[in-house]
């Protein structure tokens, strides 16, 4: 067993091999302290969140391992009757999807006729979008058709997206947009 108090020289594997009469380095003498203390990083975590793969619709179970508020590993959930702990390459790459440097974390804004993105605060952007929804809705309201049929809507605002979103999110989208009179709400199910 390597002694952590040994000098640097004594840790040099060749010397250890010589000392331990193990010239081929095939027994324990060659084991470094790092190797000795090797352990799966998922063993000591703060939290394991049960999750579901976000790619296709098979719905494989995932386990998300969290340490110090950071995701350190994502792999299949063996408990899932659908996937038995397995994942496809996309599912197996989920860690990179959610932790990768690809992700943008600021709100970006492009002015009309602009040539670059600008960073703007989230709250301000939300206010701006809300104002635009109101302005567009008010300016393009259809109360009745030419034949007098009730329309109660605006055709000037549309939405796309939903198949990658949660049910709860789709529900609020449909609820809010219907309440606003926006009927052109669509998603990938048709695309």
């Amino acid at each position, binding site marked *: 067993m390597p002694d952590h108090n040994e000098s640097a020289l004594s840790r040099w594997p060749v010397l250890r091999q010589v000392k331990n009469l193990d010239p081929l380095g095939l027994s324990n003498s060659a084991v470094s302290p790092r190797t000795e203390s090797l352990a799966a990083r998922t063993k000591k975590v703060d939290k394991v969140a049960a999750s579901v793969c976000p790619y296709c619709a098979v719905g494989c179970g995932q386990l998300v391992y969290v340490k110090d508020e950071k995701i350190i590993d994502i792999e299949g959930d063996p408990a899932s009757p659908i996937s038995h702990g397995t994942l496809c390459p996309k599912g197996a790459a989920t860690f990179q999807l959610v932790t990768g440097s690809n992700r943008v974390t600021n709100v970006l804004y492009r002015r009309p006729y602009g040539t670059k993105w600008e960073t703007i605060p989230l709250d301000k952007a939300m206010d701006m979008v809300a104002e635009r929804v109101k302005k567009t809705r008010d300016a393009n309201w259809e109360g009745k058709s030419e034949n007098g049929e009730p329309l109660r809507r605006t055709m000037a605002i549309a939405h796309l997206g939903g198949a990658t979103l949660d049910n709860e999110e789709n529900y609020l989208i449909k609820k809010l947009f219907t309440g606003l*009179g926006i009927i052109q709400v669509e998603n990938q199910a048709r695309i």
Partner: protein
Amino acid sequence: MGTSFGRGGATTFPQDLQNSDVIVIEGSNMAECHPVAFRWVMKARERGATIIHVDPRFTRTSAVANMHVPIRAGSDIAFLGGIIHYIVENERYFKEYVVNYTNAPAIINDEFRDTEDLDGLFGGWEKDKGQYKTSTWMYKGVDPEAAAGARESESGNKGEPVQKNPIQAEHTDPTLQDPRCVFQILKRHFSRYTPEMVEEACGVPKDLLLKVAETLCKNSGPERTGAFCYAVGWTQHSAGVQYIRTAAIIQLLLGNIGRPGGGIMALRGHASIQGSTDIPTLYNLLPGYLLMPKAKHDKDLETYLKLNESPSGWWGEFPKYFVSLMKAWFGDAATKEHDWCYDYLPTLTGDHSHMNTVVDMADGAVKGYFVMGENPVVGSMNGPLQRKGLRALDWLVVRDFQLIETAEFWREAPEIERGEVRSEDIGTEVFFFPAAAHTEKDGSFTNTQRLLQWHHKAIEPAGDSRSELDFVFKLGQRMKALYRDEYDQPRNWPIRDLTWDYPTKGPAQEPDAEAVLFEINGYTVSDRKAVEGYTSLKDDGSTASGCWIYSGCYRDGTNQTARRKPQGEQSWVAPEWAWAWPHNRRILYNRASADPEGKPWSERKRLVWWDEQKGEWVGEDEPDFILKRPPSYRAVENARGKETISGVDPFIMQADGKGWIYVASGLQDGPLPTHYEPQESVIPNPLYGQSCNPLRMEWKREDNPYHRPYSDPRFPFALTTYRLTEHHTAGGMSRWLSWLSELQPEMFCEISPELAVERGLRNGGWATIRTSRAEIEARVLVTNRLRPLRIRGRIVHQIGVPYHWSSKGLVRGDAANDLISFVGDPNVSIQESKALTADIRAGRRSKGRRHVTSGPIVPEIDLKAEERDLPQVRHKPETRHGYKAEETKEGNI
């Protein structure tokens, strides 16, 4: 599937595929696109099942199948029709099942005329309207006006409208001999779909067809079952719904629905695509497949309910679900006196689906656009037209993980690269909001098997990243604040009364997703206790429920979708893992797994049966039937709603309780599937003068040019698009990941060695692929996995093109969908992207032109567009954007 069986969802679940004796995978590349679900196919194969893959290409699915059947893209109805022909002509159907559980014995109206009589048209074509008068397809003796008036088709449920027709056959012939019964009509309809004809239409050698048909027949009956698996290879056609219908007919004839190892497995491509139709982000639906009101017909609540409530079958419950939805949305304001706020709902005046929205956008009618978790300039057809639309907007909101092509259309696009469009000239204001990942939010996905699975938040999202839940919730709060001073106007009352007081939590004060799920489940208004399921919902305003089919997902006040009892600690059905709609049932219509007396058809294939002692249905799955209704029950006269469902009616959502071989009402383009050619084909229709689906949606616009219907000399090859295992759809979740990008690092096309020789294409070299819409370049993969087909003595080459790439990400390439025009299925407005014509040349694209901004790419020739249709179908009424059937008085959209 809705029209055939009653519900627009897969009838089974992947784990059940291990019980199959034969599995036909067609219109799907399951091993590549759903590898983990394919695990269960491999289990079946190891148990001795025969796996058959029918596909234009030899894919990773074909590689491990027992049989691969190469087929011309876009000819599946002819192929499946050939199987129906074989089953019927050789009397190989499961007679007892067919007679008792399907509408095969129903007698049809004397007026009905088949496509066999009218060269590809059904009877009832209305020349001036450009659509069918579908009442001529009705059951004999049923008042077509009453029936059709009450309920017609509905669009938009991912290819499978939900059927709610209040019709029941008045006359039947259980011997199936009456020439006007469904069975005999079916027999005549497919009489010309012979093995020889299949060979001509599909390029499938007739021996191969016979082998497939025989394998299916051999593996059906009381002791054996077979399953079909399909995906967008079937839905994305101008007759997509009818592709699925053809498989449904086979499965009904062979007695494969509702039984273990049977069924039709719809394989969806996004984590919650089933969920996004159940709780629809679709224009024509309200949650739970309730229809959006239509301006012309649904004048008031009374009319709306009358038109939607079915006097027979489960849809008799309609008012309970609608009223509960209105209570969930508008709370105390939704009272009986105020018609439950019915007049808060906007109304439809036609088809408002995605492609129409895009052309409206290009024409300047749409000002503001939200795009959440989708990349339409890559994933949708005719990308250049999509971008033209975005350029015409006032404002655009994109929510995604990174700057996808849709967010950057104003600075990175082929037409900008070519200098045809300048950023400085684009007036669209663009907001990009970073989205939270599934690991950064609580919520549920509904997977391909109708299973709602909860995912728990693992960490807080970084920076300004937020969930869509948070975004929409806070946008709603702002809308209420902005309109507070204008609540005197009726148009703003829905905003005022919208229930929007969700509890919030966490550092970002995000709404509690479980509170939203609780509302979806439903509750009793007085004490806000969760209801047990949709059977508890009322039409008197005492209950609220955001989506009736999901009712039960919060049963007992606990989140049932978060249940995770491990596999191995429960049966193979795993009923305690998450929660499936409806009512946690895993195999739909499972009453059909027992014979008419309620006994399992066989020990080997038992699932649900009638327990005489207990007086209820029992088994391994939750019975998809009225629990205590005995097999002997028959409806009394004047029964209404669910009291009309007899003990031998497994398809409880259908008005007559039967599986529909023949769809008397509910589809716009025919009660039986008919082979039509794609909008752009390499051959003329070998069966009918009516070449294409007469009801297909077309957009005849300068920015959406079509090819000749067939044999266009400029575009001699068939082209089909698809996905690869290593990437995801339009690439937003894969092209930015090094681990996936290195596995398929570049846009490529797949061609046969024969085509390579013909066009001088070299493996690993470059090719330019061209349609009248665009020219793109791709690396060339020459492979024997693509084989030329022999059709009518001539060789047909097919080009395969994956569609994952575009101008951004770690790996880049041209977008395949730029090649494709807007054409759609009339029932569900899904685009046709799986079969078209194209040209291919060696070398890199000379210019990368796009018709929308570059003008014509190829010399114009006489298009002979009229050859798509019989004379009486030509010159359909034009609307503002291309052709779309006008609303009928039946409420057709």
